[in-house]
């Protein structure tokens, strides 16, 4: 296991260590998960940017397997919640129960729920009621849980990886905008191609399935997060990220024609934070100490696609938010000096 980074280290050393650790985690996950390199990188970006990820894909594409593998690679506590319509908030955050001591005294004791973990898999999150979904809001944003009058801090690093099925919409509760905004990235898993399917079959039908090693612990992840936040960003590039986000607003003067026609409400400030932080990570991965416009463009799709709300016309015309964001990226001028 790599030694913890020291903040006094030179940036070059920090960058090298960052890239090495990132590469090791990616390689370990790649032992189990076939293809989906972008999805794996997106998950790690969410982890290192102190964000959460929403995975969307049809059943059987390995969403849950991916999250389980990630938790195996990371030396972190992992818990899983299968969201169902009858799930209650207390089932997630925990509850106070009456306990009786040996001498017969009774007292309330807080029994923490599955949210008290480092990596939380919220499987099929859209099957729970909005009330239960909202139980995650505080945990995801403030990394704390309030039960009764007591708030409990969650241990860092804390990462929520939620999955949802885009097809099974009956009996589901689409995530509200506030909940969606808490996710740093929305990652879409595509159906694998023939070669990937061959690889999946070969790996999963042998006598022994591939095993992964734990290559990263929580402290190292926190140091990597600090490294990420050390990367400077020039104001022209930051301005580009802001203009990109504002272009998703139909009322902004940076808006795109498609935005005017199809968008009801655009992405908020959390989107800019997500873009900049993810851009910093991508810059480090590409051995740069500055955020480039290319980094902003590369992370714009997963950072913005779930934050752009379509209007009725957009829904009726079945416009994909990815299409709108791509159109914006094509037409938006780059950083201005």
């Amino acid at each position: 296991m790599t030694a913890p980074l020291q903040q006094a280290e030179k940036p070059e050393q920090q960058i090298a260590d960052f890239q090495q650790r990132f590469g090791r985690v990616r390689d370990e996950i790649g032992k189990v998960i076939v293809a989906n390199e972008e999805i794996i990188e997106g998950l790690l970006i969410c982890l290192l940017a102190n964000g959460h990820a929403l995975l969307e894909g049809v059943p059987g594409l390995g969403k849950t397997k991916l999250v389980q593998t990630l938790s195996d690679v990371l030396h972190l506590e992992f818990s899983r919640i299968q969201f169902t319509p009858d799930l209650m908030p207390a089932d997630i955050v925990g509850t106070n129960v009456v306990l009786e001591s040996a001498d017969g005294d009774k007292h309330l004791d807080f029994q923490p729920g599955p949210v008290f973990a480092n990596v939380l898999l919220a499987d099929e999150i859209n099957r729970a009621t909005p009330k239960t979904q909202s139980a995650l809001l505080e945990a995801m944003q403030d990394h704390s849980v309030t039960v009764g009058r007591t708030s409990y801090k969650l241990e860092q690093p804390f990462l929520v990886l939620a999955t949802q099925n885009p097809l099974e919409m009956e009996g589901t509760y689409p995530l509200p905008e506030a909940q969606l905004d808490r996710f740093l990235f929305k990652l879409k898993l595509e159906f694998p191609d023939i070669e990937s399917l061959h690889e999946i079959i070969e790996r999963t039908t042998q006598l022994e399935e591939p095993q992964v090693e734990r290559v990263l612990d929580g402290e190292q992840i926190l140091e990597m997060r600090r490294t990420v936040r050390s990367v400077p960003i020039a104001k022209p590039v930051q301005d580009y990220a802001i203009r990109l986000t504002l272009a998703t607003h139909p009322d902004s003067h940076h808006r795109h024609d498609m935005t005017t026609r199809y968008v009801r409400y655009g992405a908020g400030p959390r989107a800019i934070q997500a873009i900049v932080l993810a851009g910093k990570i991508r810059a480090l991965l590409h051995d740069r100490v500055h955020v480039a416009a290319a980094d902003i463009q590369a992370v714009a799709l997963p950072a913005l696609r779930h934050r752009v709300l379509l209007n009725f016309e957009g829904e009726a015309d079945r416009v994909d938010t990815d299409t709108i964001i791509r159109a914006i990226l094509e037409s938006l001028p780059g950083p201005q000096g």
Partner: protein
Amino acid sequence: MTPQEITLQLLRLVRARARANRWTQGLTDWLWRALLLCAVLRLWTALVSPGLRVGWPVYVLGVAGLAMHTALRLRHGGTLGAAAVHVDEAADLDSEMTSGHWFATEGTDTAWTELHLQRVAATATSLSAERLVPREMPKRLGVVAAAALGFVVASFFLPSSGLFERLAGAVALPDVAGGELADANPLGQLDEAGVGEDAEDPEQLREEERVNLPSLLEGEQEGIDALPEEGEMAPEEGESPEPEGSVMGDERGSEEGEPQGESQDMEVENPEDLPRSEEGQETPPDPSASSEQSEGEPAEEPGAMMPGGDEVFLQEEGEELDPGELSEEEIGHATREGGDEQVFEEGELSTLEVELEREILALPPEETPEEEEEDKIEEITRSERSRLETRNVTARSEFARQEDLHGEPIHWRYRALIRDYFMKMRARDNVRRE
């Protein structure tokens, strides 16, 4: 040198070269616009308004205005930040120079920014400003050459060739010709011809002339048409004379009518010949012919007088020329040679008042009682036939009910929308079906 200085030095070089290119381009634009403006002003004063002399202040003002416009355009841009963006694009640097410039000028001093500035300085050392911003030839150099050529031609060659005077004369001639033609008042000519010699009262005579003008003109035209038969210069029979508009240079005449039209143009081009053409119109009219033709086509006759008069003039000169055999220039020369140099001035505008005869309208023949009876019988027959052909027509109210029952209740504009709505209600099934 520090990394910041190396970076800024490269950016300054790039900015200077980019600025030089932009100024070259701007000056080229200014030059061709200024040349074009001067050439247009020169042509305008020579052709459209020869009387208005455009002095050098106008040229200076125009050129200065263009120079100010160019300077205002070039005033913007040219910052170091813009140069950094240009370097990033030209050298494909992933915003490295843009970030480096910002860190060097406004960024905080950290180990990360220092590292970045060192990297940018290394990159800047490997870059060449000449490669990043090569000297550009002005894009509109060809336009400048064309504008300069136009200016030289308009300013020096055209004035010396005398083309301006000819073109200006051509533009001014219609006015002179119009004035002369206005002088060719048919009434005045008829006065000179002594048509109303016997009239005691001049006013009464003029009134009679107005009344009889179409017939008089017709008679005169017939006399004119008769004359060329003797000199073998008359147009063929059946040729209709050119209308009055053709005297003004209208070339819509047929091929056979062209000689007449040419002679009219020739007359316009040679104003000194106009009086002699009037002499040619002094042929006494034939009263009988005029009375016959006045019933037929009175409106065309006034215009036919000028061509006829022209033909008479050529005949009287004794030059037995066949208009069909002569070109336009030859005819023109022949006419010019016989004329004297005279100075003309425009007279007062005269009017032509014409009173048309009343039109006799043919009344429908009166039906005899037998015919009326036949019509009635025929009318009855038609009525019976129409009754046989009638069929029951559905009432409007029934149509409306049919539309309600069988018509499409959803407007076609909303069908796709409503279909999509219900498709989305069961998205899973729809996706499977698709």
